[in-house]
């Protein structure tokens, strides 16, 4: 197995773990945690491709990762702000209890 494949597999696994967390946990914050893991897995992919890609000096993957980290910070802030607002509103963070949009 090449190093790239190793990193990609780790990233795939991390992504799937995050997805599983986001899909199975009740707590909204934990769903967000899962999403963060997925984002991280994507970042890992970007860095790995940058490192083993044909043109590391172009810095494309690296830049993608750095911007993605910056965006993730904003995403986390807004997401958690939403969760806090949700909690104030519904007095729970249990996603199973939040189904008022049911058709």
């Amino acid at each position: 197995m090449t190093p790239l494949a190793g990193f990609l597999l780790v990233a795939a696994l991390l992504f799937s773990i995050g997805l599983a967390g986001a899909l199975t946990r009740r707590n909204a914050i934990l769903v967000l945690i899962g999403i963060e893991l997925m984002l991280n897995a994507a970042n890992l992919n970007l860095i790995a491709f940058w490192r083993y890609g044909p043109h590391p000096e172009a810095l494309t993957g690296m830049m993608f990762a750095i911007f993605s980290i910056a965006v993730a910070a904003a995403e986390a802030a807004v997401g958690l702000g939403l969760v806090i607002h949700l909690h104030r509103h519904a007095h729970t963070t249990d996603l199973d209890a939040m189904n008022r949009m049911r058709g």
Partner: protein
Amino acid sequence: MSIAFYLIAALTLAGGLAAVLLKNTVHCALALTVAFAGQALLFLDLDAQFAGFAQILVYIGAVAILVVFAILLTKGSETPKGSVYSRHSFAGLVIAAAVFAMLGWAVIHSVAAVPRGPAATPSVTVLDIGNALMSRYVLPLEIVALLLTAALIGAVIIAMHEKERAK
């Protein structure tokens, strides 16, 4: 494939798994921190020093703290009594597994097609990154700055709204 890689990968995945599986929310957040740290180490292992340090600074220094604050503010620090998984969690697991299977399959089959060359360690300094940020990527940089400002204001407004209305 060095030993260090396997160790770090194991640490990262263990952290990720724990973050998803643990019952106590705060433990989950702390495990998430471990996963973040492992990720940063993976970045270092990939010779992406700047990205690794930025990962620590942003994720451990900010996101993890934020998560922890959110947990405390939503009174989620106690271990819940009932199940921590949602009703149809099995389906979710299956889907996640399917996604992983697809991804893994794709990785294994596509990487095999990539010609193996000894990848030289790229000599990228912080200076290069700075130059790239200020020249080729200056527009995305400005947009990210705008986004962060908007997110800052947005987060404050979302979190403040209820209190304002209560007045």
